[in-house]
């Protein structure tokens, strides 16, 4: 395909920013390289060692990615935990301890008030030396809002000054990058540093966002940076994307403590091409990352996630009805959230709102903090809220949600029967309902702001609250009406039938599935969180129901919707193209356009080519034998032409504007006293893909998807007729789906 006899000019074979890579070329380059190494390895011991280390380098890279991602996740977890509590007070024993760790060794913790200890001072205690009274409450309120605003301001300023690419979730852009797009700097070291630091600040400021999506971005940055140490991955964009898929799996693995779920997430949501070899390597990277995080032990007791669930109480078949109800709720909420969030983001993109990102962040933070402080369930961090909602109430739990009336004599083997709710539970229900409304509304405005923001934790929180409310309702219904037909068969008095914690978990899975439209990966992540297979059926029922309901209301998940909003050239791999158009309906030039710009194989001068390049913006040109015959020779890329001509003018003797450029093997016969010719055969792609003009577009779209093409030439009776680029295909699909074809940006 390419001529490797000459030394390649540096820069040839690389890509411009915001362009798509040529998958076929990259893959064939890698095969050539591998073949060369294997052939050479038979010659000397050094070459043999080189070939072994080349094969081993992939695994070493995965190990390094896992270590780095795990360490960064540990740093983020510990710092976020500390900074969240910094809004409420500080530890006198050592300022680096958060509330829980400050009171860890204290002897003064009482049974009734398990949160207070003298080592932990709230801000009102530090400023006005008392914690009681209205003035202390106001001081605490004021300091809470002040800290929240400070953190948010620091986050948005750092993003704006150092790395504007660090904002947002990152997953839509990573999806696009993995499908072959180039965004330079998106996975660079400054983006990594700023994303890590500002993620902690954003999470600590009390905003309704999570850190799972940004952790995937952080892990992919680690993967990209570490690729630069290995020649095999640095020079080849296709191999690098395999590594990025594995890094994305490691990112989800440390976010949820779910290695298998991480690999499946990478397979289902993020990656475009996922060869089988990548599956095993991703698993290795995810495991190493999870192991590293476990060693750092951010949450104590070797747990990887704050809301790890430890109960195993059984569920009954009749409970599938409320689980499916939760699935429907999740689907409805998902569709609503996607529609409103996209509308708000579009407003941000097109109107004046987008010109004041710092002010927007500060206003949203102020509103969130002011509304969140009075209610204890919004004041605590969202991960802690989820952890409390997933918790199954034991006899000795002191939280308000577990304030049941204990009207029984004995407890059999640690299992508590269903109990009537006490006063605490009723007031907790009211507060949770208000929390639900606040979270549903504020997350719409938070996701997509110019700070790192994720979406998993807020959706899980919404679902968990809805689930817990339903679960407590069911529990009380079963207690007070245990003689009804539905409860009679399986829920006798004094038995432990209903576990509200399970309902919360199923609700969380349903809402997350409704927003992201994940299927297998969601169920696997949730069951890895619970550590058991008992709850697979309820989780699957809820996830499937929520996906069906959400799909009925809106076609795309949140990440695909954001890809479409931004106009990235992402060719959706999951949908079928069902229209009967032909290749000649889509190809350029259209009927009234000027003819296709081609280069001839040996009759154009350097000046002609330079004129064509400066007058047009096409990213490549077909090369034909002659303008009359229009018989195809190959395809040459614009960037390679520019670099080669520039290089030739500097380095080769005698090349001037009237020199002839030839793409053939041997120079054309030239009369004497003409300037020397310029051979550019080594940048010519001698096997471009062609289809005939009557090929159905179904097949053309399939070819683009499966092979990852950038452009495809169209011939008629053997003569070159036109060209179809990926952008044309995307515009055509958009047109067929009645969307605005002009929204597809980029080349």
């Amino acid at each position, binding site marked *: 395909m390419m001529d490797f006899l000459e030394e390649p000019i540096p820069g040839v074979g690389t890509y411009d920013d915001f362009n798509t890579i040529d998958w076929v070329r990259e893959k064939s380059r890698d095969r050539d390289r591998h073949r060369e190494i294997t052939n050479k390895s038979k010659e000397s011991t050094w070459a043999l060692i080189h070939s072994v280390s080349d094969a081993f380098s992939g695994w070493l890279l995965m190990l390094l990615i896992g270590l780095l991602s795990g360490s960064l996740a540990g740093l983020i977890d510990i710092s976020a935990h500390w900074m969240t509590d910094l809004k409420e007070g500080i530890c006198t024993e050592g300022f680096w301890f958060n509330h829980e760790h400050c009171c860890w060794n204290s002897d003064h913790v009482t049974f009734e008030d398990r949160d207070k200890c003298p080592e932990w001072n709230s801000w009102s205690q530090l400023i006005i030396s008392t914690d009681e009274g209205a003035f202390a409450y106001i001081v605490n309120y004021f300091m809470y809002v002040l800290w929240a605003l400070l953190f948010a301001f620091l986050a948005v300023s750092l993003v704006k000054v150092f790395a504007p690419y660090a904002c947002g979730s990152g997953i839509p852009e990573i999806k696009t990058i993995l499908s072959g797009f180039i965004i330079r700097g998106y996975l660079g070291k400054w983006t990594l*540093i700023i994303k890590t630091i500002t993620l902690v600040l954003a999470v600590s400021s009390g905003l309704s966002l999570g850190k799972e999506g940004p952790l995937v971005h952080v892990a992919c940055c680690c993967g990209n940076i570490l690729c630069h140490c290995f020649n095999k991955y640095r020079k080849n964009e296709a191999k690098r994307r395999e590594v990025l898929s594995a890094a994305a799996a490691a990112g989800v693995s440390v976010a949820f403590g779910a290695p298998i779920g991480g690999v499946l997430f990478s397979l289902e949501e993020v990656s475009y091409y996922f060869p089988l070899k990548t599956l095993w390597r991703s698993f290795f990277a995810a495991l190493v990352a999870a192991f590293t995080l476990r060693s750092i032990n951010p949450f104590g007791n070797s747990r990887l996630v704050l809301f790890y669930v430890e109960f195993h109480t059984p569920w009954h078949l009749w409970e599938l009805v409320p689980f499916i109800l939760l699935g429907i709720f999740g689907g409805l909420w998902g569709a609503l959230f996607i529609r409103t969030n996209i509308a708000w983001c579009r407003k941000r993109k097109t109107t004046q709102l987008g010109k004041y990102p710092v002010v927007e962040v500060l206003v949203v933070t102020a509103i969130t903090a002011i509304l969140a402080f009075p209610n204890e369930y919004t004041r605590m961090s969202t991960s802690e809220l989820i952890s409390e909602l997933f918790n199954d109430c034991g006899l000795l739990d002191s939280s308000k949600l577990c304030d049941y009336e204990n009207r029984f004599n004995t407890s059999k083997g640690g299992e508590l029967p269903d109990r009537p709710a006490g006063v605490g539970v009723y007031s907790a229900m009211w507060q949770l309902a208000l929390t639900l409304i606040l979270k549903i509304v504020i997350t719409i405005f938070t996701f997509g702001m110019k700070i790192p923001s994720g979406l998993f934790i807020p959706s899980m929180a919404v679902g968990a609250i809805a689930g817990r409310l339903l679960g407590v309702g069911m529990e009380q219904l079963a207690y007070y009406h245990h003689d009804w037909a539905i409860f009679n068969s399986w829920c006798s008095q004094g038995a432990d039938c209903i576990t509200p914690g399970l309902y919360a978990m199923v609700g969380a899975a349903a809402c997350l599935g409704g927003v992201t439209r994940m299927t297998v990966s969601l169920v696997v992540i949730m069951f890895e969180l619970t550590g058991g297979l008992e709850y697979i059926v309820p989780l699957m029922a809820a996830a499937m129901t929520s996906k069906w309901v959400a799909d009925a209301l809106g076609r795309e998940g949140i990440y695909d919707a954001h890809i479409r909003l931004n106009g990235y050239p992402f060719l959706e791999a999951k949908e079928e193209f069902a229209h009967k158009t032909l290749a000649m309906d889509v190809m350029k030039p259209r009927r009234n356009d000027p003819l296709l710009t081609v280069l001839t194989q040996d009759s154009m001068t350097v000046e002609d080519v330079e004129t064509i390049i400066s007058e047009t913006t096409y990213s490549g040109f077909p090369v034909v034998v002659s303008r009359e015959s229009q018989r195809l020779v190959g395809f040459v890329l614009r960037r390679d032409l520019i670099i080669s001509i520039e290089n030739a003018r500097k380095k080769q003797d005698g090349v001037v504007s009237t020199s002839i450029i030839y793409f053939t093997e041997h120079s054309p016969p030239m009369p004497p006293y003409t300037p020397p010719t310029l051979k550019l055969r080594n940048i010519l792609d001698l096997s471009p893909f062609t289809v005939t003009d009557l090929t159905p577009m179904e097949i053309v779209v399939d070819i683009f998807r499966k092979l990852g093409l950038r452009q495809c030439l169209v011939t008629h009776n053997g003569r070159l007729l036109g060209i179809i680029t990926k952008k044309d295909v995307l515009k055509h699909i958009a047109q067929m789906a009645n969307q605005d074809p002009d929204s597809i940006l980029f080349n």
Partner: protein
Amino acid sequence: MATLWGGFLRLGSLLSLSCLALSVLLLVQLSDAAKNFEDVRCKCICPPYKDNSGHIYNKNISQKDCDCLHVVDPMPVRGPDVEAYCLRCECKYEERSSVTIKVTIIIYLSILGLLLLYMVYLTLVEPILKRRLFGHSQLIQSDDDVGDHQPFANAHDVLARSRGRANVLNKVEYAQQRWKLQVQEQRKSVFDRHVVLS
């Protein structure tokens, strides 16, 4: 020459990254080995029983001794009541690493502090300095769109990067200027034109 430099740089960065990874693991092992006596505890929660109110007991004790009899001290009930009292108590063994927490928070705060200082320098101090030293030549002038208006100028850029630079200070300044241009481009795409990451 440049390729040799590049090779050395890459080898150096690979070695330093491996060292970083190993040191992280070592730190983790160290914090495991030099386990602070106060970093393990057994926490027993005992509910109210007869006349005694509920109480929480903490003791820095190993995992095999983590039960009611070792931890609840002084025992509030006598004789046969002890067993009934202890049956109601829930004892859990927990451990943490305060060294890890301290080191992590200090690392994070120092990186944050450095970044804030650099940000203040870039936004406030540097323009003042530049205004004072007016007339000092700047390496890269062009401020407008580095698009494809001059395709051959961009090619010159690509080729120039592959050649080595003689002066180290020049190289640092050149790298910083290039980084600033990149960030400016990114800022334009994200904040002004709303083309990426809307």
